[in-house]
């Protein structure tokens, strides 16, 4: 089946920053993403679980599939938001079906 090269960007970010991140992405013209819940984790700031969170804020994972040539726009937009905040940004090479959608 015909596939096309793309990038998969996964941004793990604090829940209170999610709206700001997606707004920044939309402003940068990145209109395709999906948001997955994160139940817990560990990082330099220690271990946490959603159950042990006040207000159960926690973190979210935002996944964007994007054409390779648009990656830098996306990373710039994302970086401006996460810069001062905790969070992880990873980029993976991938293939997609139906490239016209991206």
């Amino acid at each position: 089946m015909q596939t096309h090269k793309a990038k998969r960007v996964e941004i793990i970010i604090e829940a209170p920053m999610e709206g700001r991140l997606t707004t920044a992405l939309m402003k940068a013209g990145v209109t395709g993403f999906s948001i997955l819940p994160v139940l817990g984790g560990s990082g330099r700031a220690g271990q946490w679980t959603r159950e042990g969170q006040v207000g159960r804020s926690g973190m979210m994972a935002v996944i964007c599939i994007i054409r390779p040539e648009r990656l830098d726009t996306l990373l710039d937009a994302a970086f401006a938001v996460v810069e001062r905040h905790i969070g992880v940004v990873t980029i993976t090479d991938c293939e997609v079906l139906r490239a016209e959608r991206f």
Partner: protein
Amino acid sequence: MQDILALAADNVLSPMILCFALGLFAALARSELTVPEAAAKALSIYLLFAIGFKGGVAVADHGVDGTLISALAAGVVLSFALPFVAFALLRVMTRLSVTDAAATSAHYGSISIVTFVTATSVLSASGIAAEGYMVAVAAAMEAPAIISALWLAARFGSGSKVDATLWREILLNGSIVLLVGSFLIGLITGAEGMARIESFIISPFQGVLCLFLLDMGLVAGRGLRGSRGVISLGVLAFGLLMPVMGAASGLAMGLLLGQSAGGVALFMTLAASASYIAVPAAMRVAMPEANPSVYLTLSLGITFPFNLIVGIPAYVAIAQAMTGA
């Protein structure tokens, strides 16, 4: 004094406080007992709705007396002022950075609605009436402290950015909207509205509060377990001293306003309590460099249990003594 102790003992042995203790124990013993996130949030929606609605109906019943506006103003003033007290104490008593101290001070100027709810339930169990509009005061006290804290942070060094979005998030945060909204609904529908939903919001209230405090105990306990090392002796002392300072200011305000014993007790409780939902979320956005373990452990792990177990019964007894009720 003896009365205070008797009341305190009574309060400590209430199902609510014991549920909180059970939650604390379970978390500290690393039991996997958990209240699902959605259930805890549903319980808190119920409590906020019930308390707001009851307040509104009470105001509709008794009419708005002159103190409503002045009480709101007093609450806003307290919320603005207390962060300065907290910040000064923190800088003197602890080695926290300016950022951490400022972020923490915002929590103590703001309020904990669950502490407030528990106080109303203690009052109603003791048959002490309180001004219905105090829920509106509670809502009004949530946000101003954040402004003081941001000013403190900017003034003493650490930057912070607050955009319009954040202000909207703070002022329209879920608990403010629900509290004020259900207060207005109670005010509009009055006794008739109450008759229709009374058996939903009055009778099960204390039982729901039990389960909610069980969850609060679990969350506070898990927070405490994860915060070893964060809490120095100075920080701990602050977490016990600050609510006392807050309660004293609340007492002064309540007496100044000429409120009833119940109203004064609630004012003390509000001023003594520290936020652990709205303010932390705002601080993560505005002051991401501040360490959340510090302010969450303080407000939820130290001050919240202190108010629940020692504070509230004391505030109620003192308010009664001072108002001569």
